[in-house]
């Protein structure tokens, strides 16, 4: 997880907005101490809901913070979007799938969507 970059980015944007730690923390509904820890990369697994609140307030793309936190990761290069299959375009209730199984399922769902569209 590249938390150093996450902390740097949060501090950089907060300062760009001219906000103190307390001001930014209040807007995101978290404690100033927690925000300080985030900026110093001392939080091992920052919660996605907190990153979302910070992204909303600091006006930075949430997906960027999720990538910096290591929660959103690049797909395996060999299997990238042959059918425009965005793996984040669906959510599942399932047992743990392997990366390969999840990729295949995404392809199947992309095919299902296009098949349905062509039959409508």
């Amino acid at each position: 997880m590249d938390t150093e970059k996450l902390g740097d980015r949060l501090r950089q944007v907060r300062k760009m907005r001219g906000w103190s730690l307390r001001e930014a923390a209040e807007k995101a509904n978290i404690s100033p101490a927690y925000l300080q820890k985030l900026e110093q990369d001392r939080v091992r697994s920052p919660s996605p809901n907190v990153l979302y609140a910070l992204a909303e307030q600091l006006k930075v793309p949430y997906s960027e913070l999720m990538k910096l936190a290591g929660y959103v990761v690049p797909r395996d290069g060999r299997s990238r979007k042959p059918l425009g299959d965005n793996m984040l375009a669906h959510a599942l209730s399932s047992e743990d799938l392997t990366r390969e199984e999840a990729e295949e399922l995404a392809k199947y769902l992309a095919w299902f969507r296009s098949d349905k569209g062509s039959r409508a």
Partner: protein
Amino acid sequence: MLDDLNSGKDIARLSEELLSRADAAGRWPTPVDDLVAASKLEVAEEESPFSISVLKRAPKHLKKALAAIGSGRIRAILDRRERTVHVDPGIDNAGRRAFLQLHEVGHDLLPWQAELAYADNDSTLSPSTNRLFEREANQTAAELLFQGARFAAMASEYETGLGAVADLKKRTGASLRATLRRYAEGHAGAVCAIYLMPSPCRAEPTAYRRREVSQSAAWSRRFGSAWPYVLDEAAFPFIAAIADPAIGQDGGLTWPDLDSEPIPMKAEAIKTSFGVALLVWVPRREVFRRKRRLVVAGSV
């Protein structure tokens, strides 16, 4: 204990807002269709990715890949772009289907999950984030189905026991498994619900493999929360209530607390399709506005 998620408060707040938007708060069984509609989602009634006719039309390589995943592992799918929920038609338990629909509603309701649908095609979630999002969706489904604190208030009208759980299951429209879990987690007394495998794995002493455990905060404070993978009758005497219900009621059952003091216990068991459900609790004086004493009978 209720799932200890950092997002727990946000999940409770967002669930309460949806219950209000759907005018569902206080209506039992929980109107799942109204919650789905208030989320501006649809449950696919006809063709779905699970349909045999659809699978037959799929390109050969995709058919092969899906066969390798195996049936039953994917229970429900939320198509964020089509705003459609698909539930495996092979799941015929109405309570289970309701939970799965609300699980998918949860994936859509939590903005920190839904927002990622618009991330680029070259990205995916890390496995640990996937697992976190699954737990969050499960907790959202439970918050919606059991309507936050309203379920615990309703459950407090009953004398503790599996009969109460069976009746609450009917009133809420949830599955027995989900109801038992919520019942134990939200109980004010020291209560623990244990799901065991359907048959013993050993005899003398009788032992069962554990599937899952849910317990109240009072139970955790008094007995801790460490459970071995195999529970045998010698160390866990309440196992005996599976074969002999009388032992669980007036059989002088005791179990040591964290101070090694033997504490009197009651236990009830019922066989279900998921396994043996065992409810264990410390008896206490219960005061009811409306006392509901229900006796559990047979299997569910």
